[in-house]
């Protein structure tokens, strides 16, 4: 699964304004709403579900990255976005580091495979230090999409 299969380009935010966990989750979900990927009346329900999932255990997976996510019945396919925080956000990550790069994923309830493959793609790319670093340094959404497209292009098969 490539980034282009699940990342909504119009919802990419290269300079998050919020500085706390709930704030960035709201901001990223708002971005998806503005991009037309989620419904207005589902916004609050989705945010609450993502926050609830965080309570079960931080999605800060290390290396300054977090993957907040939820299943939600209002989407019929995996919907995602990516955002960068210049100041870093405390996500209570296992490694104690602040999070500067976030991938938010909303998946349909009955397709765990899609979510897993998105995580696979994200984690595989993150093993590349350069990719990780450049993404965190991205200043605009175009910077981000350029990096994601390059990563997609470098994939062998899918």
């Amino acid at each position: 699964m490539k980034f282009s299969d699940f990342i909504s380009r119009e919802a990419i935010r290269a300079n998050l304004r919020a500085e706390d966990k709930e704030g960035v989750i709201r901001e990223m979900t708002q971005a998806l709403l503005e991009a037309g990927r989620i419904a207005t009346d589902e916004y609050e329900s989705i945010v609450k579900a993502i926050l609830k999932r965080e309570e079960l255990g931080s999605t800060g997976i290390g290396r300054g990255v977090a993957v907040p996510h939820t299943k939600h019945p209002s989407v019929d396919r995996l919907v995602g976005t990516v955002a960068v925080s210049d100041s870093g956000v405390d996500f209570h990550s296992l490694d104690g580091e602040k999070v500067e790069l976030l991938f938010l994923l909303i998946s349909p309830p009955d397709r765990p495979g899609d979510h897993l493959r998105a995580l696979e793609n994200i984690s595989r790319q993150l093993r590349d230090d350069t990719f990780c670093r450049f993404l965190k340094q991205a200043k605009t959404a175009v910077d981000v999409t350029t990096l994601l497209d390059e990563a997609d292009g470098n994939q062998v098969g899918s």
Partner: protein
Amino acid sequence: MEVSTYRRVVTIVNPNGLHARPADQMVKVASQYKCRIEICKGHERVDGRSIISLLTLAAEQGTELVIEAEGEDAQSAVEALAELIAHQFHEAHEE
């Protein structure tokens, strides 16, 4: 000095597979031990203490993995991880 290596074949049973939360739990368990721990899927071999590496396996329900540990507490480590996986990472409600 002989160093013991222990291996166990396990199957991922929970419906959502090895996603972020189970990977996180595996790392928490693995970090309690001193031995080298690696998780293998087919030809892939990853560090059992790295969440990001575990996620690259994209292990769905039904996937067979091999837990391999080498060192003084290898046997306990393998057993603890195998138990965690067999108990579906204690996922009572599917997220």
